[in-house]
């Protein structure tokens, strides 16, 4: 865990990127609720507020999902920094999410 904290946004504050995230959810379905929770917590812990999260409820805005090429919900789309990527599911595997965000990255793997 100490590894992680050295790479935390606070550690390299100046070069840290700004994250634009779009979370597609389906109302209050259980996986969607969980994804929202996890994302909020991760942002607070690791991104220190350097992020803009837009939450799209697909049940209300179906076309938004299609426009973004989202076919399974919940899904998290990382729009920037590039490359754009999508994580499908309830985000329960936090390590994987951080990896996708390029945060825990290679520091954890070896």
């Amino acid at each position, binding site marked *: 865990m100490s590894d992680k904290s050295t790479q935390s946004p606070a550690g390299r504050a100046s070069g840290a990127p700004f994250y634009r995230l779009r979370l597609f*959810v389906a109302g209050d379905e259980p*996986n969607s609720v969980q994804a929202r929770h996890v994302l909020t917590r991760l942002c607070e812990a690791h991104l220190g507020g350097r992020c803009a999260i837009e939450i799209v409820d697909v*049940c209300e805005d179906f076309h938004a999902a299609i426009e973004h090429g989202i*076919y*399974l919900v919940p899904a998290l789309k990382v729009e920037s920094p590039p490359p754009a990527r999508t994580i*499908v599911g309830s985000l329960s595997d936090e390590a994987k999410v951080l990896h996708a965000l390029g945060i825990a990255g290679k520091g954890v793997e070896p």
Partner: protein
Amino acid sequence: MSKDRREPNELVERLAQAEAALDALRRGEVDLVVGPDALRVVRLKPLVEENERLAREWRTTFDAVKDAIFVLDADQRILRCNRAAEKLFERPGEELLGKHCWEIVHGTAEPIPECPILRMRQSLQRETMDLSIGDRWFEVEVDPILDAKNRLTGAVNIISDITERKKAEKERAVLHEQLQQAQKLESIGRLAGGVAHDFNNILSVILGYGDILLGKLHQQDPMRDEVREIVTAGRRAEALIRQLLAFSRKQTLQPQVLDLNEQVRNLEKMLRRLIGEDIALDLALAEDLPPVLFDPGQLDQVIINLAVNSRDAMPKGGKLLIETSAVELDKAYAAAHTGASPGEYVLLAVTDTGCGMDKETAEKIFEPFFTTKEKGKGTGLGLSTVYGIVKQSGGNIWVYSEPGKGTTFKIYLPQTEEKQKTREKIVASQEISGGEHILVVEDEESVRNLIKSALTRLGYSVTLAANGGEALLLVEEKGLKPDLVITDVVMPNMGGKELIDRLRRTYPGLGALFMSGYTDNAIVHHGVLDQDTPFIQKPFTLQELGRKVHEVLASKPS
């Protein structure tokens, strides 16, 4: 070049995405699938959970079923089996899975020809078969598993233990057979009894007048031989009729409280003589045997008949065992034996080490005139007599036999509460008449006249009445005062016993002698004469009649 290199990368990327998506789906982390033109709200996670719950439920149910179940693939390999199957075939599930069902169920290298699955492949419907494994019976039931196009993809194979049912079926069949046997004997008995009754009266007349004729013919008369032939033939017919009457349970019995052991011991000497030296006689008599109510003369006949049959079954010698014991028959026994009822019995068993008999023979032995013996050796009436006597006395008889091994007859007689009476010795009497007055009540005219001529010859004065009403008229209205009334037991309107009871209101100490060759069922049921009642069985010789009449008159308190 760079484009060429990029394309595979993009493909890998897309495949990775698809895999991740599938993964999320599998884990049940997806709430919704977005289709091209509509939302498909798939609550996948609950679905997964529901699936798991159903799977658990199904497994528990599967294992809870007491019948063994195999789920088979199209090649009859076991895909799944429940706990009952593991238990039945005494192997853990892992050892059963993947094996062909015939290997496990029949232990064969290929399906057995009667395999219901072979039939099911054709019919695509449930097929069944009964199967015995060891000493148990099973019903095998197979149901096809079909795909959407009605093609066979497997089968469900259920194996249920039906041993109890098979056993019950067999018991029912045995009971049914017993019942039919009993009914057959019953109807033969009725027929025989009816004929015997009429025959008896006719014989009484033939024998009676034969005797009278002999008495009248001079000692040197050449006709004596011919008349004696008539009488002898009549006696043979009489013996036959007696047996038929016994079989049809229409003898008049005079049951007494008897000790079966004593009865057997009294017979022992004569039995030894009967069976000869090559056959050993063993008695195994239980101590403290409860008494039974039985006609002693008939009991002797039963034992002798059985012993004679055993002797005939052991021409080269052997062993004859007569046993007695007190037994209690329970409900289960009664349920399995037609005609038996639960209770306390005395068992008389006669066992020999003779030739025995097969089932077909054993089924017929109680029928009159059934014999396997050559002409002149057997009449086929021995066992039918035994059967009739035992049944009429409220008992039951069963035969157990094995060809080549031997035979056991078991006779169950109900125990009695009554105490044994010490039998009074009958004083030897001289048949000299003191000119007493006798009223003879008999509905058959020829018999009536015969008795009159016989008694008159002995010096008695005789009045005749054709029925009970006539007798009452003579006594109550005309003031007739007989010393003795001889009456038939069975007569139309008023039976003999009723008549005597009536007459004794007028003359309390009135002597009575009952005669009968036949009693109908009603009489057998409750009218069996009690053991002290003077009785003479028709047909009788004139000497017998004379002796009996004298005996009754002599014992009469005057």
